[in-house]
């Protein structure tokens, strides 16, 4: 018995060395979790902290002060309530038709732009994926090239294109399609043009990554079994590229839904988009609580459907 108890500290001493060795051993064993955990912790903190602040502001009343909202915690001795929260901003949002219409209008803009991006981007991604090695890199570079210029600058450039005496109108007049300039800027069309132009690469790149991996043997196998080219596309290419389609659509739809710059620069006063309303509430009306509530509702409207979708997809996969 006594021999066995004597053994324990001895083996421990042999197993662990100095502190440096122990840290090294720890790193060696857990480097994978550390490499993942650190950046995720960073992202989580700097996503959750602003989110918590915005959420807190959305539960306050606007006041004319600095900052322009009532504090949530009142530490003064004569305070009736130590904690003050209100759902008034959300009630206001729900009851005001303007916000509803804006959300719906934003959704429509984003959805139509996403579909247009998909319709334009899919054939492009397919063609790039099937191109020769040498041309493929050039084509990919051309897709990425616009990112080298500022986004704001590119949207400004569209103003120049769509202007009353911009290039497009001049071209239309010169070709004889129209006598006078057509109103292009400050219309729905301008917003769609801006959205599709700006977000097309976000559709093409995930689709390309997916289609490039598509096994050519599968296409030949389908054709061998009697599928005409369009049937091969419908039965093999399309279902196999679904992950790419979903990724591309999310990457276009989510930022398009909250887009501010494009509707602000290219859209007219009637082209409502939620990003603009948010900006106006915040900076013109200085109603921070309402602006925060608008942002929280937008986030919920985007995140909840995606989570539901993933939930059902997992369920379908399990079956």
């Amino acid at each position, binding site marked *: 018995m006594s021999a066995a108890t004597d053994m324990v500290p001895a083996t421990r001493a042999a197993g662990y060395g100095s502190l440096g060795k122990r840290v090294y051993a720890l790193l060696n064993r857990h480097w994978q979790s550390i490499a993942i955990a650190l950046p995720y912790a960073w992202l989580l903190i700097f996503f959750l902290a602003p989110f918590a602040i915005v959420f807190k502001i959305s539960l306050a009343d606007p006041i004319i002060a600095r900052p322009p909202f009532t504090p949530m915690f009142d530490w003064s001795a004569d305070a009736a309530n130590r904690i003050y929260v209100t759902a008034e901003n959300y009630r206001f949002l729900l009851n005001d038709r303007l916000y509803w219409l804006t959300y719906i209008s934003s959704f429509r803009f984003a959805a139509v732009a996403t579909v247009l991006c998909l319709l334009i981007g899919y054939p492009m991604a397919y063609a790039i994926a099937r191109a020769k090695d040498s041309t493929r890199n050039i084509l990919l570079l051309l897709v990425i090239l616009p990112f080298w210029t500022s986004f704001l600058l590119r949207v400004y450039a569209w103003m120049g294109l769509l202007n009353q005496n911009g290039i497009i109108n001049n071209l239309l007049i010169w070709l004889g399609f129209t006598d006078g300039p057509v109103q292009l800027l400050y219309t729905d069309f301008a917003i769609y043009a801006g959205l599709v132009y700006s977000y097309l690469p976000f559709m093409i790149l995930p689709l390309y990554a997916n289609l490039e991996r598509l096994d050519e043997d599968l296409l030949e196998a389908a054709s*061998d*079994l*009697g599928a*005409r080219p369009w*049937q091969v596309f419908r039965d093999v290419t399309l*279902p196999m590229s679904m992950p790419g389609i979903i990724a591309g659509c999310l990457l276009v739809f989510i930022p398009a839904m909250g887009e501010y710059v494009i509707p602000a620069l290219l859209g007219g006063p009637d082209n409502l988009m939620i990003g603009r309303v948010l900006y106006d509430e915040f900076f013109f009306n200085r109603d921070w609580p309402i602006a925060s509530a608008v942002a929280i509702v937008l986030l919920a409207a985007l995140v909840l459907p995606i989570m539901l979708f993933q939930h059902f997809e997992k369920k379908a996969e399990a079956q």
Partner: protein
Amino acid sequence: MRSSEQNGQRERPKDPWADSPWLKPDETPFIRIENVSKMFGDFRAVDDVSLSIYRGELFSILGGSGCGKTTLLRMLAGFELPSEGRILIDGKDVTRVPAYERPVNMMFQSYALFPHMTVEGNIAYGLKRDAMSRSAIRERVNEMLQLVQLTEFRTRKPNQLSGGQRQRVALARALAKRPKVLLLDEPLAALDKKLREQTQFELANIQDKLGVTFVVVTHDQEEAMTLSSRIAVMKNGRFVQVGTPHEVYENPADTYTADFVGNINLFSGMVTAAQDGQVTVDLTDFPGGVTLATHQTVRPGTEVSVALRPEKIFVTRDRPDDPKLMTAAGIIFDQGYFGKLSVFRVQIDSQKIVQVSAQNRIRFSKRAWDWDEHVFLSWDPQSMLVLAS
């Protein structure tokens, strides 16, 4: 070679190609490949190839990588358009018929199973492309599942199957449409040895049962030997030899075929006399001339190679006294033990190294031969084969 044991009844295996249609001059070939070439840029992948394959054959195209065998198969499937020549299947010119309209199905080397469909879905896919009723499709799928013994796996996805099971799904899918011709691209390459041997016989059985014409592309000579009615040995886009496995093995057309189909010892020699299908050759490695029967036309004075398969040589400790045998003394230079057989590399007196393989007929408790042991090699001269070099 084929064993078939079904429904408890023992059927006596018989030679499936006893009637050898390729020997009958009035037999119409089922597949005709006429002067087909395929160019990729300046490279001739397939070079003016002509071939007849008969109904119900299990025809193998054998060759090393890059010999053009896969390109030829892809032209039969309709994935590649021949640069020259034409292809007829069952009397119809299909050279320009797209793959989806050909009465031909292919089993891919990668199997190319649709990962998003179940086993059933994969097998039914080709049937659904034809205007077939739902009940007929279900019936055919069941039949195919039974044929490849995968009925209980019907709702699995391909990634839930083992390699052997995937191979069988691929086979069932390719056979479901009852194609006139089934093309198989390296059908057994992805299987391990045991499974490969078993599947070889299964393939042959299925082929026998359905009577479909099989065209197999393979680089594995053993696979080609056991399966085929005939083999075409291909090299640099051309056929070197077309014949039955027996012909190709025992009467190879040239040293390439001889070496590709099994192992071979080559001895160089000079023809000293030739008449009536008999040649006398002076071999550099052995004293005295040897007279051999041959189909080759060689004139006296030409250099030839004489081939001798390793398994046709005996190894003994004492000099055999049978005067009909050729003998050579040597020492064991190297040896390898493969379980059922042993391979020796014996250095004979002329310093040449001869490969010998011997069945391990008797169980030795330890190695039977030592390195550097003095041995005698002996063989029947008629086992030697004259090849024009």
